[in-house]
């Protein structure tokens, strides 16, 4: 009964992988467009508080980030356990904030300077004393627009 004989050399034919690069490139372009480069490595613990009345920041390039929090585990022996300020890639004092804001202004084109915004990313365990110092420095530097970074809480 040769009619019911199975095909010879059974098994499925190999799936063509010719379009695999195209698929991967598509993924690649998607990620290139939707993400931004990581600019700093965090040296501080940074658990943001939660709030419901949040606004999104449209243009991240206009943001200068000030991180506040206790140094991460590996840094504790060197920098202590008290919350500190991180600007760019190093621990700084609040007196350095003015210089930091000025540097950001310097690198921004003139018509965008009024739109600059300072993002304070502070840990939940940070005390307001340190934040107040930063705010005072920002007032002195005339950088009045600030944003307290928070996670969005849905009510």
């Amino acid at each position: 009964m040769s009619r019911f004989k199975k095909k010879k050399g059974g098994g499925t034919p190999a799936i063509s992988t010719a379009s695999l690069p195209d698929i991967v490139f598509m993924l690649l372009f998607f990620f290139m467009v939707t993400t931004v480069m990581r600019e700093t490595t965090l040296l501080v613990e940074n658990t943001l508080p939660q709030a419901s009345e949040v606004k999104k920041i449209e243009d991240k390039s206009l943001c200068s980030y000030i991180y506040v929090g206790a140094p991460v585990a590996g840094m504790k022996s060197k920098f202590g356990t008290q919350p500190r300020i991180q600007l760019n890639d190093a621990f700084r004092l609040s007196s350095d904030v003015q210089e930091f804001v000025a540097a950001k202004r310097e690198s921004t084109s003139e018509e965008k300077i009024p739109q600059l915004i300072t993002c304070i990313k502070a840990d939940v365990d940070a005390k307001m004393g340190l934040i107040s110092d930063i705010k005072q420095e920002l007032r002195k530097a005339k950088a009045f627009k600030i944003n307290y970074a928070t996670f969005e809480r849905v009510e």
Partner: protein
Amino acid sequence: MSRRSLPEINAGSMADIAFLLLIFFLVTTTMDVDTGLVRKLPAMPEEEEIIDDSQIKARNIYVVLVNAKDQLLVEEELMDISQLREGTKAFLDNWGKDPNLSDNPQKAIVSLQNDRGTSYEMYISVQNELSAAYRELRDREAQKKFGVKYAELKGDNKKEIRKMFPEKISEAEPKNVGEN
């Protein structure tokens, strides 16, 4: 010279190269959206300038104090954070009825003062509740007038509602009572 057709370039490793690039971008970039509470700091007072707040009637100021133990004192009474939103709304939305609360929302000012020992988490919660109170009142007014929420309004309509309930949160210089 004999003409031969060019041998086809093997594109089999193209996928590997693309994967490599993809993984590189996955590792070095972030996708998180930045959200937060937007505030405007006041300008530094000029030296000769004397702030005259005697013009503002006491009833139009809603005093919110936060101490180093994260306790709230609102209008000289201890209050839980969960009641702050309703309290602020009652203060703003008084229209001269209760003599201890505001004349009208345009004159009303929320005065917030915190200690240097106040935790950041508490401070953000308080700011959030105050914003929420304003947002809820604006939403209500926008619903009544235009039938949509405040956030969906545009241009002049938005300005009108904002003028009705201007968000006036004044922050005093922090005190250092509870040294930590």
